[in-house]
């Protein structure tokens, strides 16, 4: 009993000492606690190949950054959402509650992101999206702590719409999976392409066989086909489109993430000649991109996809903002300001955030061809839109920090 009392007295004494010493002591503790970053992406299942590229791109950025951000240690916690909104939500909850993450990123699919983003933002954490940019987050649900580094979902299809309008193509056949990003891409396309739509078809998410849809589109005799099928769906669609003999008859256009280095090895030569609307290609001429592509190939022995490029940029956006606040990300208003005005050398060349926290950047047209080593790549053709923001700025009433 007496021993206990003795210890308690000692503890109180120690407490008062530390109280006196607080300014010095607190800074030291503050500098020692590492920044916690939660990286949730799709590691398992067919779409795991995208998750691998996103994680590799992010890890390459961390390798280039080194062991400290803004003079402070950091830790990254990884999680797998299995492309299931409910699983993603559970992983996010666990990271917020037991790992106490402060910054999150990595979710690929818009439907998974939309299910998880509210608990993240409610917990006061920041979400820096390396891929998904759903309309809701750019417009009505825009949030001071949410930033989209890659694109707003509509963007690349706005570029395609502009290109097809410029080319004077008349009847367009549009296909996408029936989920939020599919609807966003259709909306983006029609915002810039004002001509006739032969049809807009939304298929079940994860559909394997498109023979019925391809027969319908052949019968409609469109001038061009525009489709958005990320991951395995894209492999199936492009192979089947080519096997139906249509690749040489009706030009096929798609956005990023459908026909890229995550799917081209499986599609093979069936993809030759098709067009891609993209904000990044392997051949971007700026020094940041040359370094990224060369180091990625050296580290992982394959060409990076746009997913990898965007998460590489995401890692560097986070680092640049953390450096700008000297590692003190607990000052959330300052960290938000640092993100809004972030300065870094993007692999896309020029980059800045719009007031609703999505990129202002250029959009290009690329075409699938073989490079000097016989590998299938997206080769730059032309720039379609310059310094584009997004259409949802007016819907976003960004609350003051």
């Amino acid at each position, binding site marked *: 009993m007496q021993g206990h009392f003795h210890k308690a007295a000692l503890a109180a004494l120690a407490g008062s000492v530390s109280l006196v010493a607080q300014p010095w002591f607190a800074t030291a503790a503050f500098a020692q606690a590492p920044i916690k970053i939660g990286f949730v992406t799709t590691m398992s*299942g*067919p779409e*795991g*190949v995208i998750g*691998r590229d996103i994680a590799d791109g992010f890890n390459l950025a961390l390798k280039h950054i080194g062991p400290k951000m803004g003079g402070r240690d950091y830790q990254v916690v990884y999680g797998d959402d299995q492309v299931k909104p409910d699983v993603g939500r559970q992983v996010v909850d666990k990271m917020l509650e037991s790992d106490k993450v402060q910054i999150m990123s990595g979710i690929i699919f818009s439907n998974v992101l939309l299910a998880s983003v509210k608990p993240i933002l409610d917990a006061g954490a920041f979400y820096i999206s390396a891929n998904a940019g759903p309309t809701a987050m750019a417009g009505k649900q825009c949030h001071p702590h949410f930033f989209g580094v890659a694109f707003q979902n509509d963007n690349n299809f706005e570029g395609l719409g502009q290109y097809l309008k410029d080319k004077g193509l008349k009847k367009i056949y549009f296909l996408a999976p*029936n989920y939020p990003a599919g609807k966003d891409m259709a909306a983006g396309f029609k915002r810039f392409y004002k001509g006739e739509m032969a049809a807009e*078809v*939304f*298929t*079940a998410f*994860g*559909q*394997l*066989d498109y*023979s*019925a*849809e391809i*027969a*319908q589109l*052949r*019968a409609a005799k469109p001038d061009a086909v525009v489709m958005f099928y990320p991951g*395995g769906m894209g*492999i*199936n669609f492009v*192979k*089947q489109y*080519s*096997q*139906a*003999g249509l690749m040489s008859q009706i030009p096929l256009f798609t956005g990023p993430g459908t026909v890229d280095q*995550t*799917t081209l*090895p*499986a*599609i*093979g030569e*069936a993809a030759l000649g098709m067009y891609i609307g993209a904000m990044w290609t392997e051949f971007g001429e700026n020094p940041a991109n040359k370094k990224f592509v060369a180091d990625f190939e050296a580290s992982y022995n394959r060409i990076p996809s746009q997913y990898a490029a965007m998460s590489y940029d995401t890692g560097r956006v986070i680092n640049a903002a953390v450096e700008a606040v000297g590692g003190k990300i607990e000052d959330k208003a300052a960290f938000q300001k640092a993100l809004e005005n972030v300065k870094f050398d993007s692999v896309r060349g020029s980059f800045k955030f719009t007031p609703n926290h999505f990129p202002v950047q250029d959009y290009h047209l690329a075409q699938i061809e073989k490079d000097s080593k016989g590998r299938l790549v997206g080769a730059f053709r032309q720039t379609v839109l310059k310094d584009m923001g997004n259409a949802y700025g007016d819907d976003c009433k960004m609350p003051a920090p």
Partner: protein
Amino acid sequence: MSFSLFIEQLLNGVQFGVMLFLISAGLTLVFGIMNLINLAHGALYMSGAFIAAAMIKYTGNFFVAVVVAVVATAGIGAVMERLILRRFYARDHLDQVLVTFGLILVFNDLVRLVWGVVPVQLRLPGPFSGSVQLMAEVQYPAFRLVILAVGLLVALGLYFVVVHTRIGMWIRAGASNRPMASALGVDVGLIFSLVFAAGAALAGLAGLMAGAISSVQVGMGEPVLILALVVTVIGGIGSIRGAFLAALIIGIVDTFGRVLLPPALGSMVIFMLMAAILAWRPKGLFPVNA
């Protein structure tokens, strides 16, 4: 819908149907005769596709690859039956579901270990990779016609074996009354192994043909397994004839449902059909033990 488009969609529906039949044939026999629910059937389908893709890459010969893939998948099926599933025939369905679900995970990770996460390419020989002009307005992918022909031939062959041969008689006897068949001197153990290996071979064949038109990737067997279970249940568990008819119905209804109905309804239509058929005939179209 014009006549030529209708013909093309009908071909698509029948082609999808025979594909489903190839996958379901083994599942329904194993379920009907051995009373075993094999969720790992989709893993055999995936194995067929991956082995064929690898063989095409290394030998460059499509036909050699087909033979090797089908034989190898039958072998994998036989080993799986001998080593693991044989012990579960007498156990209840929950145990069977658990062990075969575990097998799915094991197979997926083995494939990931060997081939990696990136989907692989199954390259078709030149003449099969294009399309052919069937009628004035109907241009149809050549390989889908091959699938159609192979599927119908296999269906005919299975019909002949099951209805007109001694082994077929044993299989039917085993399906309708197992203890009686074994009391009459049928080597039930041997029949089980044969049926399982044959079902695995068919799943492998279906997998490699599907791999030529869609992507060969880890987990490709699971979505297909669900449809195969629907076919098995609609057709009547253990009935080859039922599986064939149910597969064709589902293939055609799904194809036309997708193009004629709104998207949400189109992807539900086969499950609504299943509910309707089961309400009308709770044991499926051709119940074996009726």
